[in-house]
């Protein structure tokens, strides 16, 4: 099957990709810093207390973006895995491998911040309801992918195995999303991504969306940096093999 034309084909050259990433990163970092500064100001100095949660609603401004990015990160890995298995795009498994630790951290932070919100609100740090359990499964999937990458020395074989695991595990993402609709859960239903539109007042929704944008930009800053590092790692590995071959020939 031929590779898709256009931007993905042009980015298949790792050297060109690194050049573009190097040009984009400083601007993306600046945007991230501005968004975090704005979001934190809105969170602590503008957003009012919630009529039910009180000031504990402020945890939502970090919990919800973390959870969104946990799912977005895995979706990115799944799309990269398709690119790797079907189109054999040279940078697809680089993208997947780079995204896994980042997504795992956001998933962990979603669980921790959710627990710290749950104790004062629900009276417990944890319940085995569908939403919490499926997010915990997501964390295990991330850790499994990282372990798989580490356990197979050959990058191509590791990439294929990880891509298959990632695609099988992607079934968990819609389960997470719709768990609050399909089962009776303690976790509340969706308040933002709803067919009827957000059910949150703008005084809370605006800081939430700014923080979500900040978290998203941070994700892509870290992802781009991790991808360029992975390309360097593979170059180091290739040069080491050259070094060993030369030593053996002498």
């Amino acid at each position, binding site marked *: 099957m031929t590779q898709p034309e256009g931007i993905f084909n042009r980015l298949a050259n790792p050297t060109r990709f690194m050049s573009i990433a190097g040009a984009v990163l400083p601007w993306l970092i600046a945007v991230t810093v501005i968004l975090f500064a704005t979001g934190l100001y809105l969170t602590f100095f503008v957003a009012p207390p919630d009529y039910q949660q009180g000031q504990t609603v402020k*945890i939502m401004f970090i919990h919800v973006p973390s959870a969104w990015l946990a799912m977005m990160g895995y979706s990115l890995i799944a799309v990269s895995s398709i690119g790797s298995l079907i189109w054999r795009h040279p940078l697809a498994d680089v993208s997947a491998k780079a995204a896994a630790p980042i997504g795992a951290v956001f998933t962990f932070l979603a669980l921790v911040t959710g627990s710290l919100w749950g104790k004062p609100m629900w009276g417990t740090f944890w319940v085995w309801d569908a939403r919490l359990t499926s997010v915990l499964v997501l964390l295990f999937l991330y850790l499994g992918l990282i372990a798989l990458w580490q356990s197979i020395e050959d990058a191509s074989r590791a990439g294929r195995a990880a891509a298959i695991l990632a695609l099988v595990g992607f079934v968990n993402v819609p389960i997470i999303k719709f768990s609050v609709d399909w089962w009776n859960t303690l976790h509340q239903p969706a308040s933002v991504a709803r067919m009827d539109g957000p059910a949150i007042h703008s005084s809370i929704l605006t800081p939430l969306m700014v923080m979500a944008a900040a978290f998203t930009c941070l994700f892509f800053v870290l992802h781009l940096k991790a991808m360029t590092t992975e390309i360097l790692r593979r170059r180091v590995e290739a040069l080491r093999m050259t070094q060993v071959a030369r030593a053996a020939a002498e």
Partner: protein
Amino acid sequence: MIDLGDHAAFIIGAYAAVTVGLAGLIAWIIADARQQARMLAELEAQGITRRSARGDQASGAKGSAK
């Protein structure tokens, strides 16, 4: 001083966890990048370079991910 209410400890704990988590992630990614760049520089200083770096500068880099 912002009044964070009766559950201030949980709010502060959540923001502290996110700060530590993201700071650790950022530090790890930067450290990994620097380590790989250093190792690449050491290998190239020993005269071990990629085929594309050695011979194809005139026609533009056409290297692989390796």
